């Protein structure tokens, strides 16, 4: 059907007109968008009675930034379904916080936590995020080859590992896209992506 001109045939126009005009957005995308807008002060969340799960998160927020990872890793009974077992490679996303990381203002921790939770929940729903944890603030202690233990120096201004997520992705490129979509990046955090050796 190669044609000498560039005009569409009636059949081609018909085929184009029949292309679907809509697609179902992924579950969790709405919540992630609402959380992102709320974090920017563009939406105001309606007040609702706190349930036990919310209280757990609120308490966690005082010490844990990546409560999304906590919710996934320890409070497995969240709203998102369990990730499917599949053969995709696993990746670790190491989240670093340096001086450029935009720490939440006092009183804004809830919104920040909610944004991480929404992101992790959305990614968990589509089978990407398997879990994650926030590392507790404090000294890093290393075991040296001779067996001795010592505190790792933490020079001011140097980024520190603050948490991690474990994800599944078809390939490294997809893993990088998932990492890019994490709110941590938007707040000036750095994410190092490493593929996990299958065992």
């Amino acid at each position: 059907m190669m044609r000498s001109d560039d005009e569409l045939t009636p059949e081609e126009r018909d085929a184009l007109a029949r292309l679907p005009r809509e697609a179902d957005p992924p579950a969790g995308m709405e919540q992630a968008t609402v959380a992102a807008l709320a974090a920017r002060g563009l939406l105001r969340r309606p007040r609702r009675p706190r349930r036990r799960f919310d209280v757990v998160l609120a308490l966690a927020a005082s010490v844990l930034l990546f409560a999304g990872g906590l919710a996934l890793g320890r409070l497995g009974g969240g709203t998102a379904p369990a990730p499917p077992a599949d053969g995709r490679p696993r990746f670790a996303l190491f989240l670093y916080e340096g001086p450029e990381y935009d720490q939440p203002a006092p009183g804004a921790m809830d919104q920040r936590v909610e944004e991480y939770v929404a992101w992790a929940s959305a990614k968990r729903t589509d089978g990407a995020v398997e879990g994650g944890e926030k590392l507790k603030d404090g000294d890093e202690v290393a075991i040296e080859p001779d067996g001795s233990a010592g505190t790792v120096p933490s020079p001011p201004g140097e980024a520190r590992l603050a948490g991690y997520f474990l994800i599944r992705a078809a390939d490294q490129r997809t893993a990088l896209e998932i990492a890019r979509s994490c709110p941590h990046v938007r707040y000036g955090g750095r994410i190092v992506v490493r593929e996990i050796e299958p065992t």
Partner: protein
Amino acid sequence: MREDRDLAAAVVRSGDEAAFRALYRRHTPALYRLALRLGGGDEPWAEELVQRSWIRAVEGLGAFGWRSALPTWLGGIAINCARELWREGRGRDEALDEVRDEAPVARGSPAGPEDRIDLERAIERLPQGYRQVFVLHDVEGYTHEEIGGLLGIEAGTSKSQLSHARRRLRSALEPPASWGERRGSG
């Protein structure tokens, strides 16, 4: 059902989350389909584009003059956001496009439609420059002048890209069947 304008006013006036969710649910399916097509089927990229588009839209909603329908305005925002993402190096790159474009496609044989690529997949396989013009012109109905304004290119460039895109699609989709005959699979 509340009109878009009422819902938008509530979002602007008081950050009404319920009003935003109503707008989101009404318009996101079309926005997401556009994002998937512009991104060549890259779902994480499309999700990022839709979220960024809504953030921009809500930021600018107070200044929206309603001289066009809300979906039209949202589409323009999405295209601008897509350009931003591409400039940031996000999304499928041209090198990969070329590899995919030159890779053997599951050619249709007279034996079975399961071997055929459908029109949607063929559009996804177009290189980014061809794809965006094709989607905007032949699927979304923008004129070359409008595309030029949206993408920051000359109208003549848009026409040229469209011509290349159509040729690539025709080449990818035949033989043996035309676009119309393949549409059922997609």
